[in-house]
């Protein structure tokens, strides 16, 4: 093992892990609600969810229970998303390095992991603190959840231990298992690590979604099914997919910010080139995770509707409708920043200039799509809310705000973001194959027909007189996918044996790097916002329809209040990440050895 300043982090990890265990043990000391129910002559399994009165919620030192738990939960989610995502694409990058036999990939993958290691202890710390806070502030709820999920918490703890072990082995064996067959062994460890990590997330997602769409219990909350049934509730898989993708995009964005910062701070051109390349790759990963997200998001939303129309309307039409407008603004910001970065990247190649004139058209589409997306259509509200907001319907903007228009906008934005990427990809390659011109024509045709199809389906969806205009969105998604997949495949053939021109990594304006900071900031805030939406969907229920929240803070806070809290949590997260980056930098800093001192005179010398 290489001795280095990572070691303290390692030790810290062990400390955190034991902290979590202590916390878990402490929870064992709390009154066991199942036993309490049995005392009252009830069979614990058939007893419903507890009815809790206002007075049953502990107040501790005048702290706001909800805000405390909210902040800790969100912090834990941020860190966990990052810590789970990076090994995923780290492994992919390592694999790239192995198949292309390009050592640069391997060292970048290692660098990704280095950042993760320092963040890992904080994840555990936040998780332990969250568990503690939940048990302190919401003992009846936690008692009930423990009853529903029985031994699953132990599995979670076990998985967490396994995650720690595999993570440390994966990272610290990197240099030892570097070449040949040993590399495959190393990658298998990485695979195991990711399998454990994903399972960990899925387990936790089961708890979060159980609270939204309880399963395996009857209407009173009495347990009727197995732990598996409770886990596999209606919203579990949609959330699993959405978070999986979002985590990758999020992890990419954060690593991108690290690379951008290093790029700006470095003087040495070779190191700058390296960090430019790392920034580019991270942005690529972020976009890759991002492109399918809207579809996963719509799936999640559709499942929410089909689980409970009431919940769906509460989300999209009720008090929370405005939040989806902020969501659209944030997503638009992310898209614009990512595109801006890609356009700036055209500077890196000599042929890139050729594409610059097209950038403005891409820009127009992206901004136009963005504007359509943020246009609200209808806000369905309770009368008192209508009084506050002054009306439910945006008369002028209405048609732009409906789903077909939004779907059209989203699909076009995705297609054009992909186009930005494709322009850069092409700018460093001069096709030589005979097939090239024909291939080019096909790609143009793909774009034109695809976009016409997307717009046409949008118009059709608009004039179709149904409440649910979902039918039209399928051809749109298909068009988008065909354009993307089709032109990737054609370009592979078209550019086979192409003459590659040098990409001048590092030839980037400092300004372009700021796009890589917008990305994680917007992403972090967006995640905070979505977490708030997810919790708010349950309105005044701990476990929707089964266990009521009778605490003083059962209301849904205003967007402004929520925004302020989210900003504070984001700031906290940024502080942690700065520290984490600093830690991982520290690992490379070597103190210059002190100047050899002039030989001191010894006593015998003086005596002489």
């Amino acid at each position, binding site marked *: 093992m290489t001795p280095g300043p990572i070691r303290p982090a390692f030790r810290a990890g062990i400390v955190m892990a034991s902290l979590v265990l202590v916390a878990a043990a402490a929870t064992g000391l709390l009154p066991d609600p199942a036993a309490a129910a049995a005392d009252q002559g009830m069979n614990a399994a058939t007893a419903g969810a507890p009815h809790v009165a206002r007075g049953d919620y502990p107040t501790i030192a005048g702290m706001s229970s909800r805000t405390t738990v909210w902040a800790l939960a969100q912090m834990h989610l941020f860190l966990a998303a990052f810590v789970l995502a990076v090994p995923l694409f780290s492994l992919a990058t390592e694999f790239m390095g192995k198949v292309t036999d390009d050592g640069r990939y391997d060292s970048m993958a290692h660098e990704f992991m280095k950042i993760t290691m320092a963040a890992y202890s904080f994840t555990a710390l936040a998780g332990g603190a969250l568990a503690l806070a939940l048990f302190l502030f919401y003992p009846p709820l936690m008692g009930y959840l423990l009853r529903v999920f029985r031994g699953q918490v132990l599995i979670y703890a076990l998985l967490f231990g396994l995650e720690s072990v595999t993570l440390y082995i994966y990272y610290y064996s990197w240099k030892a298992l570097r070449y040949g067959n040993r590399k495959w062994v190393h990658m298998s460890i990485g695979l195991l690590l990711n399998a454990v990590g994903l399972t960990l997330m899925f387990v936790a997602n089961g708890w979060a979604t159980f609270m939204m769409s309880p399963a395996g219990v009857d*209407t009173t909350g009495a347990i009727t099914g197995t732990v598996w049934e409770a886990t596999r509730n209606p919203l579990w898989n949609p959330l699993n997919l959405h978070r999986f993708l979002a985590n990758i995009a999020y992890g990419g964005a954060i690593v991108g910010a690290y690379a951008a*910062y290093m790029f*700006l*701070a470095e003087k040495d051109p070779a190191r700058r080139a390296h960090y430019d390349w790392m920034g580019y790759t991270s942005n690529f990963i972020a976009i890759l995770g991002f492109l399918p997200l809207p579809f996963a998001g719509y799936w999640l939303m559709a499942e929410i509707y*089909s689980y*409970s*129309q*009431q919940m769906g*309307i*509460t989300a999209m*039409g*009720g*008090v929370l409708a*405005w939040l989806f407008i*902020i969501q659209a*603004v*944030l997503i638009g910001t992310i898209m614009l920043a990512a595109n801006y970065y890609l356009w700036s990247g055209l500077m890196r190649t000599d042929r890139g200039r050729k594409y610059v004139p097209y950038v403005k058209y891409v820009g127009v589409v992206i901004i136009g799509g963005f504007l359509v997306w943020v246009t609200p259509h*209808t806000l*369905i*509200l*309770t*009368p008192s*809310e209508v009084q*506050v*907001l002054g009306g*439910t319907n945006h008369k002028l903007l209405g048609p732009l705000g409906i789903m077909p228009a939004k779907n059209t906008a989203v699909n076009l934005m995705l297609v054009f973001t992909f186009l930005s990427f494709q322009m850069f990809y092409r700018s460093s390659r001069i096709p030589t194959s005979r097939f090239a011109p024909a291939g080019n024509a096909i790609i143009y045709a793909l774009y034109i027909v695809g976009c016409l199809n997307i717009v046409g389906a949008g118009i059709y969806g608009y004039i179709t007189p149904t*409440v*649910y205009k*979902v039918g039209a969105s399928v051809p749109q998604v298909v068009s988008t996918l065909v354009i993307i997949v089709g032109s990737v495949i054609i370009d592979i053939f078209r550019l086979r044996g192409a003459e590659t021109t040098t990409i001048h990594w590092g030839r980037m304006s400092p300004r372009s790097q*700021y796009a890589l*900071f*917008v990305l994680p*900031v*917007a992403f972090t*805030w967006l995640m905070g916002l979505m977490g708030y939406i997810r919790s*708010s969907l349950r*309105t*005044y*229920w701990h476990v*929707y*329809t*089964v266990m*009521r*929240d009778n605490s003083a803070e*059962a*209301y*849904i*806070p*205003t*967007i*402004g*209040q*929520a*925004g*302020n809290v*989210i*900003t504070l949590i*984001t*700031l906290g997260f*940024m502080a942690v990440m700065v520290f984490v980056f600093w830690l991982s930098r520290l690992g490379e800093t070597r103190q210059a050895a002190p100047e050899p001192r002039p030989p001191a005179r010894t006593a015998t010398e003086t005596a002489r």
Partner: protein
Amino acid sequence: MTFLKVFAFSLLSLLVFTVFANILPQVQSDPPKEETLDTGSMDMAGMIAFGERLFRGKGTCTLCHNELGRAPDMLNLDLTADFASRLADPAYAGAAKGKTGARAFEIYIRESMQDPSIYVVPGFGKKGTNDTVSPMPRVDAPPIELTEVEMNAVIAFLQDRAGVKPTVPLPSAEEAPAAEPAATAQEEDTGPLTDPVEIIDSYGCAACHDLNGSEADLGPDLRGVGTRLSREEIARAIYDPDATIAEGYEPGIMPQDFGERMRVSELNLLVDYLASLK
């Protein structure tokens, strides 16, 4: 220096999001408050007004029942014609089938609230169910949880809007809206029964059927009826007994008016109970 610049820039972006969140309309959504009403002195006009408050407030009915087309816009529809056409629809198979008038409206509205899928207004069913499953939640169950009295108030409100005289009972003083429904079931003519065995007793099922150990044999043995019939078939056999006749028995013996006399909630309980006899 770079650090400060980057930090300031990130802070600025954060600030933009925060300010944006703060300039949007600010609404706080509170949990519904339980109204404590002096129900003892409430007359029908008070009941109708209470029903309207519930319709727009605690019942969250306007979340879906509004002009946006997610559910019938009951505040703007001609309810007289609307309800009458539902009852006349051949597809309608609820307890008020073939009936008209205020009492039939009451049954229809109550069914709509307690068991919305008995009849689904065409075009409004859950996606993919071909209008057999209603997306409307039961209003007497969480998350809406209207009490018996509150449901009566909503019915009174809708009956009034449909131009008929409300037929629901006025709440007696004991039945404060906040009270648990179980506590309201004491008097037979004011509240529905909540215990299936009591329901069987009070409607005299055991006089003809072998139920609860009565060993009567005028009608089919109902011990274990849950293994022979589905929930739907049992319900049908009670509110429309002659629709299908059990083998070896005559039509017209089992009373035809249970659908009218029984509360929907009682019917539900009874059916649940019978279906559980295995």
